[in-house]
């Protein structure tokens, strides 16, 4: 067993709404042990982050992706498809964060390979549950 501390999990957060991004960060801070967060607030930048992981074997793939469906330039669906065809990110859990209540949208997103769906609430306590949900999909602490 290695004595080195396991690296902090890397989380990608793709969200263009600044208050929502701040609240997601707040929820993760409260729920998780140290983690590394990389963010993008538009779709092309998100795709670039995924491309960088695929193109550079030195760079670690994320442990979890939090993805808003309504991003400028590239939609959440485009990014989900890109993730699912990526060499190194295809198995990464993806939590969709969206304000849509449409069951049809939820069904379509699951077909495209999303792991979970989180509906943004206007109630703070409910919104902050995103932290607990994220924790469920991260490797347990100490695992390599």
């Amino acid at each position, binding site marked *: 067993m290695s004595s080195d501390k396991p690296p902090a999990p890397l989380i990608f957060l793709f969200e263009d*709404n600044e*208050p*929502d991004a701040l*609240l997601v960060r*707040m929820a993760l801070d409260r729920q998780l042990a140290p983690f590394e967060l990389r963010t993008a607030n538009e779709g092309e930048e998100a795709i670039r982050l995924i491309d960088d992981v695929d193109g550079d074997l030195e760079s670690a793939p994320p442990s979890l992706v939090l993805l808003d469906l309504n991003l400028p330039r590239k939609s959440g669906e485009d990014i989900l498809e890109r993730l699912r065809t990526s060499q190194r990110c295809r198995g990464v859990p993806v939590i969709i964060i969206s*304000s849509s209540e449409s069951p049809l949208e939820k069904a379509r997103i699951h077909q495209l390979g999303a792991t979970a769906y989180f509906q*943004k*609430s*206007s*109630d*703070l306590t409910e*919104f902050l549950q995103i932290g607990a949900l994220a924790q469920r999909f991260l490797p347990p602490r100490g695992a390599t």
Partner: protein
Amino acid sequence: MVDEADSGNAVSVAARAGRGHGAGAQPVPSITFLLWQADSRGAVTKFDGPAAAAAILLPGSEWIDLIHPEERADAVAHWNSCVRAGKSFYCEARLQLQMADGYRSYLIRAIPAGQTDLTFPLWDVAAMDITEQKRREEKLKATNLELEQFTFTACHDLKEPVRNLALSCQVLQQEYRPQLDASADQFLVYISDAARRMEALVDDLLDYTRSSVVTAVPDDPLDLNLVVRDVLEDLHTLVEETGAVVYSHPLPALCMQQFHIEQVFHHLIENSLVYRSEKVPEIDISAEEVGGAWRFAIKDNGIGIEPEYHDTIFGLFKRLQKRDELSGSGVGLATCRKIIESYGGRIWVESRPGNGSTFFFSLPPD
């Protein structure tokens, strides 16, 4: 020519097929009114009005041949049933009158001319050109649809900033409370109340616009007992808080979109719970067949409504209470009316202040 198997004096659809009319006649300008007389087989016996009509309606020709082929079979069936019953004929149809712009829309009415002793009784027929009116109707429909789509998009896009407003307020109230004085705290209460009201209003407006979205009515009947059960489950917090007793009598199954009828029951039952009196709310839900249509009743023992408001309450944004007294955005009953009327039904209330209200709605058979 004559449908012998039936009444012996009515028009046969098959006989119309392929028959021309006024072949070789010169195109004529639009004719606003046409008057003629025809026998029960549809054969023209005499005509009045513009001389140009002579090119179209000739004695012995059959006027139903002028109707657009797509509408002819229905018109013939309707004509035959009117002839059999001796009842006046009424239909809207496109007529080909050999004009430059082809078919034009006409409103056609016919009444028995009174000579019942003839083998083929005579009918007076009048047709009025309603083409322009139809075009304006179509344009208005398209404009209304565009407006509804605009409202839907606007409401949908308003949801996000309203949610951010509500959440930011809660962060300040919960995380920064020690740093705020009493008056700052009070202003945050105002902001969060406003955000909550705005959110409810946007949600209700979204439901209102969705209530008019035209989609196919399902073929399978929907069990309304199950719909009411689901609605009561949705409202269980309010039912429990108020200790309400709800009686639901057996309801029929009807072909309706589930979202639509759910909305109607939801708003009516919720209103009975919200506008309750000092008494424990009692709500009675029932349906009966009246004159071939279903009539539903949602009866409560709430505060009741003054007669002068019995119509206005179904208007958009109409509320009878001050904002602080009882919650409600003023969209619920307007949504109910829009849905019920879109199914060809009617909604109304019978109520007196202090004596509860009964909301009725009727739905025609499928």
